């Protein structure tokens, strides 16, 4: 297993999911089952510049999260990662498998390929790589926002005030 001692977030690389143009506005570690992430996602997408999404599912808090991250990753293999992420955050009440299949149909994607991709070991490995990079950077809750230099940014929805 990977070493999980402290390390800055990795620089953006070719396997990162990035949307937008220009300077990097934010690198976000997010959980697709997290209501705080859903609330923040709209605000994040209003920023100018490039936005990078990194997977940070916390299965024990959001049991459906691993499946949703796998679905997003699989949709990404057919070129529609951010469309799937947008859809999952916009409609958090419809995230069972039939709802995912409906989304794939709406996006005009190959369902059989989607099903194979979301269950593939390399999909799980890809998600885990992001997660572990977040762990090493000290991500302890979602959403966790960083700038391109690795500096942590504040998020209106991320923190809790009571222990």
């Amino acid at each position: 297993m990977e070493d999980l001692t402290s390390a800055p977030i990795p620089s953006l690389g070719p396997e990162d999911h990035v949307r937008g143009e220009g300077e990097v506005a934010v690198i976000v570690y997010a959980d697709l089952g997290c209501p705080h992430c859903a609330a923040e996602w709209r605000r994040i997408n209003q920023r100018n510049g490039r936005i990078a999404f990194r997977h940070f599912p916390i299965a024990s808090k959001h049991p459906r999260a691993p499946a949703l991250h796998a679905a997003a990753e699989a949709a990404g293999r057919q070129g529609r990662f951010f469309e799937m992420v947008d859809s999952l955050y916009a409609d958090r009440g419809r995230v069972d498998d039939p709802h995912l299949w409906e989304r794939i149909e709406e996006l005009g994607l190959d369902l059989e390929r989607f099903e194979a991709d979301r269950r593939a070991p390399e999909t799980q490995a890809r998600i885990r790589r992001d997660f572990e990079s977040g762990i090493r950077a000290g991500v302890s809750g979602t959403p966790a926002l960083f700038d391109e230099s690795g500096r942590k940014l504040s998020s209106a929805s991320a923190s809790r005030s009571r222990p």
Partner: protein
Amino acid sequence: MIAVGEQAPDFTLRDEDGEEVSLSDYRGRKVMLVFYPADFSPVCSDQLSLYQEVKPQIAEKGVELVGISVDGGYAHKAFQEKLGIDTTLLSDFEPKGEVARAYGSYLDGVGIANRTLVLVDEDGKVAWTYESPNPGEFPGANVIFDALAE
């Protein structure tokens, strides 16, 4: 806060199933005691959920993770089930906070353990400690792995 190098005070507390668990049961293994304020509180939930995600990697380092709060066993059981975690949770319930006090982790006046981590080595000695600046913050999992790498 208990100091590194001190002998970790032994204790016997009940876990989420009502079974007695003593620190000395772990002699010969490393154990990370995770003192936390309260079951079901937001930050405690986040903390234990996060650690659950890397528990296999912690176990690979030969370390057992054990949570301790002043909550009773029934609350611990429900908390475990709600979070979907399998970390042993011990009740520092009666006398309230006695074990947390022994480790310098009890917040008098508030009536809860502070958010602290104590790594006890195979010989029962305190190998490393961490105390959160306030109960509202918890150490990321990377802090645990940094300690285990020392």
